[in-house]
Structure formats: structure tokens, C-alpha cells
């Protein structure tokens, strides 16, 4: 926030701002605690396990226990690391994660500082976190960390573009970059209905942006053992952890705001809409966890190819579609039709790309079947 604005506001406003920021910090920390518990429990049940059970009823106190343990743990700083960068990297990551939330509205009034260029601000700040990851990877003087940091840079910047493009097309629909206006613009119909392609692109790019499976490439545990975080422990690591979950929450919240009408819903008016908002956000997060429990991980070259060959062109397409729709003032269903067509095209492209090996497999199987049929002709000595 520029200094001139700070000077212009009164003392009362300033105190209110500090209190609001404090409330936001606490609320987000609470959200992170709930998310860690939810993720472990959901994944546990998905894998027929119990998840945490020891701490409190249903293991509800597990996140608190985790947090305590992480804070009390020794914070190891490698001797050969770049100390300053090692220190500052997690702070960059977590501050950029928190800063996004300054302008994300929970309801019409539940927002710290609504900005007219809210969407622009969010996109601008989400890029800053990448710097932290690269610094963390490089500063920890670990080869896995360096690889992870560079992977993070490549991945996050590539997937930033589709996110920006889709966000722009949504802003064009709402005729505003103000998130409140975008939600208010969905009074007649939620944007998911007229821009399903946008949702698909935004959600996939969002997954990549927060490094969720199948795009958890920059900290892939089974390959580069945690990537940029490999040398971090204790409080430093927990800060990364915090940022990761806040970002997940932010992406889910943005998905809800841009496509599912934010806090609007039948029955509840005014600030009670936050219930709808949280409900929708948690549902989106559940889908993210569900995907995490199902998919393997892509490889870095496949990931980049997917970003630049599918996501980026398609996200440009959404802008073109929205522009045409806005310019000629066509009815809403026309955009739905166009977007759905686009989605189908994407589906076919992905299907073609991804099933190339699958086809190969089918071919192999038929060849194998033929071969086995051939082999079976001379009867191999059966049972008695």
C-alpha cells in the first residue's frame, strides 16, 4: 500500500486496518489447521485408512499437535547454505500468500480492503511466491532443492498465463476487475454455466499453481524428495506448509468467486452468505483432495508441453469467445454453446494426446492376444 494512502487515512481507520489484518491472519491460520486435518482425514478414508485418531475426538487436535511439534523442533540451517536467502525465502512465500487475501471478499462486506483492480492485484502477488521458491531451492545449497526451485519457476510461470487469461475473460464478462462486482455480475446466472471451458482451464491451472497432484512436480517426494523444501525443518518448513495451504484455499476461493457466484445462494442474504462461500470453497477443496488421491504425477516435460500446447491456446480462445459474445451482444446460451464446444475440443485434444500411449497399449494387447492364440494351438500339457 503506497505511503501516501497510509498518510491519508485517519488513525481510527489505521487501527481498524490492523485489527482486520490480525483477524485475517488468525482466520487463515484456522483455515490452514482445518485443511490439514481435512486432507489427512479425507485421504485416509479414501485409502481405507483411519487418518489421525489419537489427538482429541476424531483426531481434531492433530493440526495443533503438528504445529506445536514443528515450532519446537530444531531449525536446522545447512552450513553451506546462503543464510540470508535461506531465511528470507519462506517469508517471501508466506507473505505473498497472505497478501492475496487482503482483497478476496468473503461476502459483500467481509473484506479487508476491496480494490477496484482486485483481480489484477491477486495475479500480481501470486507471482511473487515463485521467487521465494526459487530462492529457497537455490539458497539451501542442495541439488534436489535447486532442481525443485527451477522446476517451480518453470511450472508456476507457465501456468500463470492460462490463469491470467481466464481471469481476464471473466473480468470481461463482469465488466470489472473488482471481485465484488464479479460476484454481483453472477446474479442472473453463475459464470460456470456460460463459461465451462474457463472453469476447466482455471481449475487445472490452479492445481498446477499450488502444486497439487497431478502437478506436484516441483516438490515430488519420490523423485526430488521435497524439492525446495528439502533442507528446511521446524518453523521454517511450517511456514512453507502454511503458504501452500493458504494458496490452495485462495485458488479454491477464486474458483468459487469467478465461477460459482461467490457468497450468493438461495435463502441467505447479507453477510450470512459467508456460509455459502465457505461451503462452496470447501467443496472445491474436497475435489482437489479427491484428485490428489487418484492421480499419479506428470513428468516435467509433459507438464510444460501441456501448458504451452493446450492450456495457453485454449485460454486465448476463451478470451476470443468472450469478446465476440460481448461485442455482438449475443444471448448467454451462445457463449455456453461456444465454451462447451471449446471444452469438448480441449477434451478431444487431451484425449488424443494422452491416449496415444493408451492406443499403443490397445494395439499391443490385440497383438498379444493374437500371439497367445497362436501359441495355444499346440496344446500345452494341461492338468490331469
Amino acid at each position, binding site marked *: 500500500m503506497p505511503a501516501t494512502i497510509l498518510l491519508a487515512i485517519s488513525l481510527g481507520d489505521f487501527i481498524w486496518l490492523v485489527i482486520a489484518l490480525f483477524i485475517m491472519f488468525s482466520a487463515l491460520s484456522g483455515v490452514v489447521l482445518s485443511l490439514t486435518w481435512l486432507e489427512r482425514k479425507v485421504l485416509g478414508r479414501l485409502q481405507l485408512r483411519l487418518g489421525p485418531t*489419537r489427538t*482429541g475426538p476424531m483426531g481434531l487436535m492433530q493440526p495443533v499437535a503438528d504445529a506445536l511439534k514443528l515450532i519446537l523442533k530444531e531449525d536446522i540451517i545447512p552450513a553451506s547454505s546462503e543464510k540470508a536467502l535461506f531465511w528470507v525465502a519462506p517469508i517471501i512465500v508466506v507473505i505473498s500468500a497472505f497478501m492475496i487475501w487482503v482483497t478476496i471478499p468473503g461476502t459483500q462486506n467481509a473484506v479487508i480492503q476491496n480494490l477496484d483492480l482486485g483481480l489484477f492485484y491477486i495475479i500480481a502477488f501470486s507471482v511473487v511466491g515463485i521467487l521465494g521458491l526459487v530462492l529457497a531451492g537455490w539458497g539451501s545449497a542442495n541439488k534436489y532443492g535447486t532442481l525443485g526451485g527451477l522446476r517451480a519457476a518453470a511450472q508456476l510461470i507457465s501456468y500463470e498465463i492460462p490463469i491470467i487469461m481466464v481471469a481476464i475473460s471473466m473480468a470481461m464478462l463482469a465488466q470489472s476487475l473488482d471481485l465484488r462486482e464479479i460476484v454481483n455480475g453472477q446474479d442472473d446466472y453463475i459464470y460456470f454455466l456460460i463459461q465451462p471451458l474457463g472453469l476447466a482451464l482455471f481449475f487445472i491451472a490452479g492445481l498446477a499453481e499450488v502444486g497439487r497432484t497431478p502437478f506436484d512436480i516441483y516438490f515430488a517426494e519420490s523423485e526430488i524428495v521435497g524439492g525446495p523444501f528439502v533442507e528446511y525443518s521446524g518453523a521454517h518448513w511450517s511456514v512453507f506448509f502454511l503458504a501452500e495451504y493458504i494458496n490452495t484455499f485462495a485458488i479454491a476461493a477464486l474458483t468459487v468467486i469467478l465461477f460459482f457466484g461467490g457468497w450468493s445462494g438461495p435463502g441467505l442474504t447479507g453477510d450470512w452468505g459467508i456460509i455459502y462461500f465457505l461451503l462452496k470453497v470447501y467443496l472445491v477443496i474436497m475435489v482437489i483432495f*479427491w484428485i490428489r488421491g487418484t492421480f499419479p504425477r506428470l513428468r516435467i516435460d509433459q507438464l510444460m508441453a501441456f501448458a504451452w500446447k493446450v492450456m495457453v491456446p485454449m485460454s486465448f480462445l476463451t478470451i476470443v469467445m468472450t469478446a465476440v459474445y460481448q461485442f455482438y451482444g449475443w444471448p448467454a446460451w451462445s457463449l455456453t454453446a461456444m465454451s462447451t464446444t471449446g471444452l469438448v475440443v480441449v477434451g478431444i485434444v487431451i484425449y488424443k494426446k494422452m491416449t496415444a500411449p493408451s492406443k499403443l497399449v490397445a494395439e499391443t494387447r490385440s497383438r498379444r492376444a493374437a500371439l497367445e492364440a497362436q501359441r495355444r494351438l499346440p496344446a500345452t500339457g494341461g492338468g490331469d
Partner: protein
Amino acid sequence: MFNSLKGLVVTLVSTMNGLRAPVTRQYPDSGNLLGKRDEPTPVKDRFMGFPALTWDDEVGEPFCTSCMVCIRGCPTQCMTSVMKDNPLHEQEKSSRRKIVDSFEINLNRCILCGICVEVCNFDAIVMSHEHEMSTSNRNGDRLDLPALLEIGFKFQKDTDWIPPTKRVKVPKGGAAEESKTPAEAESP
């Protein structure tokens, strides 16, 4: 694409199953801090835990005569024993002329192979169901005679143990005769 979607369905179904009946169980007890239910870890009848010595209730002495067969058969040399003249034999209460004086098993060396039980001629050693025996001192797993007899006695009581040589041979499957393990003979 379609296979991935199919995978999503599979995980959704498994979530439902996981909510209904998770496969894992709490170790070593179930419940949480509010309500704990103690359940012993279930083991099968033939489960081979750490070896222990048996107690002859009729006479009131161990079965073991310290004949060293098990010690020679042990692949890891984890046992030692010392023999003595049996005082009860002199009083004509026991048929055993020699009896075990001291016996030690280093459970850290033991690999639970069961060879000692197999070679024993006096029904003196058993593979008990005891397996959760971690201690925090260095020599905590070197068990001496009283400790071994205690574990063995617990096993005898728990499974209604009958000495293998005194078991009734149950004819099974025509000519085959097979001695049954104690637990098996008793359990339904």
C-alpha cells in the same frame, strides 16, 4: 481421459468403503484420548513369538533338562544354559535326573525361526505369542530363567497347552497322522 475418470469413480467408491469400514486398526489399542479400548493385537494360533520355557505343573519344575539340543540347533547362537542335578529327583518326586539351572535367551539375537522348538525332545521350549517386548535398556531383552518360565507359563495358560508328545494323534485324511498344535486342538 475416460480411464482417469473411471479412476475418480474408483476412489469415490473406496471413500465410501473407507467411511463405512476402514481396513486399518489402531495399534495397540483403539479409540482416542477420550475413550480408549484395549484390544490385544490379534495373532493366529500358530503365531511364533519369542521362545519361552514351559513349566511342568504336575511336578512343579521346568520341563527343561538343559540338554543343549536347542542351543546346538540355534542358527544364531542366542541361547545359553547350565545344567544341575535335580533335587526333586533325589526326593523321588520327579523322573528328571537333571534339571535346568540357568537359561538365558538373548531376544535381540533371536530370529524366531522355531528350530529350537522343533528339535526339543522334552517339550520344554515353545514359541510363545509374546512379541511386543521392546525395552529401553541395553540388556533388557536378555531373558533369564524366571522370566522365560513366566512367559511360557502365561502362554500355557492362554492356550491350554498340552505337551506335544502327550497329544492324542488325530488320524486325518486316511493314513495321515498329524499332531496338532495346542492352540489348534483347543480353539474351535
